[in-house]
């Protein structure tokens, strides 16, 4: 077990593509970090640099107290779980697990014990004498996990380990990975493009965009205070509504529609305003409101997603199924639930009001599960 320090790491591929641009992340011992971002943003590249499968172009990576830039992958004291499992097809499950230990000269009895323990933990004991091709996808995934666990490495690296599984299995494996990681306390770096997976697994999220870090933070912090319009639209489902607007005095103008904030926030005229779908509610008489023209409805069971337009711009509201939906609807939102971003750079304007209604420090993690 060890901390991992990634300092100003860049990756420039042959041909001049800069896939990772001066990324720094300090990962505490035992922490579960998830790298998340759209396809091609450099997640895998960053992970593979830590693993030693890609050379580090610039910067340093430390695991524990060692700079591991020039150390062989097998000597870095890490284990990796690959997307397509990458099991050795010609070895039995037992040998797949034991291979890394044998090569390190671990005594036979110790290997037996460790394999047995990992197999028990992952419930793959009855498959130990089988070859990988005689296993289902989920079972192969467990074997791949087992191969990482038996090594008792300082860190686990995961590259989209669940993306080949079906939706249901993915959810249950997600839970198991999380539990296993907490139980073993092994520092983990996990890559995914699935924001839900990222939210549920991470102690801290790293949102990457175009090879750069957009935001690092605990899942709820990132969800409630996204650092940019990119993060706002990437984290959370449905994506946060982003509307171009103008502030005049205490008022926000969306075309002909107006919301009064009650007080004047400290930023200039042209802005992007963010609203979470679940923060929108139907206006009662006396509330100021935005009028949405309803286009279509998505039923999710517990909620209903109402898609429409305000002043010609797309808006999605998450409403209770009990509410009647008309052709047009008057929606309102509490001013402290609004997010404000620079219209040009997309960067978030700091706390616009003193009280955001969300106490980031005391918010219990359990709330996360409920919210999702």
């Amino acid at each position, binding site marked *: 077990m060890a901390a991992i320090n990634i300092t100003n790491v860049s990756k420039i591929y042959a041909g001049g593509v800069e896939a990772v641009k001066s990324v720094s992340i300090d990962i505490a011992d035992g922490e579960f970090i998830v790298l998340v971002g759209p396809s091609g943003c450099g997640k895998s590249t960053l992970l593979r640099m830590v*693993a*030693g*499968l890609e050379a580090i172009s610039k910067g340093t990576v430390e695991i524990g107290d060692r700079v591991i830039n020039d150390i*062989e*992958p*097998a*000597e*870095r004291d*890490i*284990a*990796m779980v*690959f*997307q*397509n*499992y*990458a*099991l*050795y*097809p*010609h070895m039995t499950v037992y040998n797949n697990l034991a*291979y*890394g230990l044998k*090569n390190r000269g671990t005594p036979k009895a110790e290997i037996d014990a460790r394999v047995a323990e990992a197999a028990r933990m992952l419930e793959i004991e009855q498959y130990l004498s089988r*070859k990988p*091709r005689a296993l289902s996808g989920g079972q192969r995934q467990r074997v791949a996990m087992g*191969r990482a666990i038996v090594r008792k490495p300082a860190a686990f690296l995961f590259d989209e380990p669940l993306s080949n599984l079906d939706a249901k299995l993915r959810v249950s494996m997600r839970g198991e990975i999380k539990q296993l990681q907490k139980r073993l306390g092994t520092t983990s770096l996990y890559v995914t493009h699935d924001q839900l997976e990222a939210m549920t697994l991470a102690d801290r999220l790293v949102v990457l965009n175009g090879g750069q870090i957009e935001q690092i933070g605990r899942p709820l912090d990132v969800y409630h205070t996204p650092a940019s319009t990119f993060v706002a639209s990437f984290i959370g489902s449905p994506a946060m509504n982003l509307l171009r607007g103008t502030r005049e005095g205490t008022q926000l103008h969306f075309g002909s529609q107006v919301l009064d904030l009650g007080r004047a926030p400290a930023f200039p005229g042209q802005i992007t305003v963010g609203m979470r779908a679940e923060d929108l509610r139907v206006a009662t008489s006396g509330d100021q409101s935005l009028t949405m023209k309803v286009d279509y409805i998505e039923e999710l069971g517990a909620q209903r997603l109402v898609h429409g337009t305000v002043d010609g711009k797309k808006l999605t509201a998450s409403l209770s199924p009990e509410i009647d939906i008309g052709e047009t609807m008057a929606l309102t939102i509490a001013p402290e639930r609004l997010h404000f971003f620079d219209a040009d750079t997309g960067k978030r304007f700091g706390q616009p009001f003193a009280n955001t209604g969300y106490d980031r420090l005391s918010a219990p993690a359990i709330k996360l599960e409920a919210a999702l």
Partner: protein
Amino acid sequence: MTHAPSLSATNPTPTSAGGFFRRFRSAPSEPDAAKRVQFNSPLLPYLFLAPQMAIIFIFFYWPSVQAIQSSFYLEDPFGFGSTFVGMANYTDVLKSGEYLSIARFTAVFTALVTFFSLAIGLLLAVKADGIIRGNATYKTLLIWVYAIAPPVAGLMGMMMFDQHIGPLVKVAAFFGWNMQVGLNYNDTAFAMIVVSVWKQIPYNFIFFLSGLQGIPVPVREAALMDCRSGLRRFWTVILPLLAPTAFFLLIINTTYALFDTFGVIDVMVKDKAANNPITLVYKVYMDGFRGNDLGGSSAQSVILMIIVFVLTIFQFRFIERRVHYN
């Protein structure tokens, strides 16, 4: 005894080669439903098969039957009829000290040619694989060059040992070795093995290279994290995954060494077989066409057929069992 090298040429990739053996063995038990074709007339499929069957029959079964038949007869050297002699041709052959020493040489020759052409082909493929991984253009060029090489390479190999202009002869002379290919038994054997190996390397190289390229990259990477020694990784992960290709090539190369080296031997011994090493297949030719002993020659080719038969069964029974097909 006819050998059809084109059989292997129609299986350009080692995976299809592995699949070829597997399908061949399991075809009766598991018909491939997805590939089943319906013919309107029950005769049509036989019509499609007819040309291939005709070729097999005319060039393989018919000569085989002829050979077996004539191996029991003593043919008059001047073409005046033949006499049934029972097993006499066989006992003559097997009692002949010359024949047994040729058989011994053939065994050594086949083992060495097979081993070295496989080993060198593999070594070159591993080295090339390290360089051209991911570089498609380079790969195509390299394979292309090697693919047209075999006949040219054979010719070059022979010229290397030419008594007058052969550079290898000159190099040997520089080290005090008066190499006399075609005159000295050991020198000829050496040259024969070198040229035979040299000629077969490109073929093995292509198969090994595409076999190596077929090993999934993540599996190699997983091995990279599990094992620091490159040599050990090669023995424990790469080579086992290459086994189907290697097994396929083993059979092809054994057959090559036994039969397809005829041309090389013919050029080297230049009809002066007396003092020179030859293999069993060349001896069949010598006795049959030079010595006009058709009966003895037929008996030899039947023996050769049995040897190949036993060898192939042995390879499938005891070696293929250890091969992992993915």
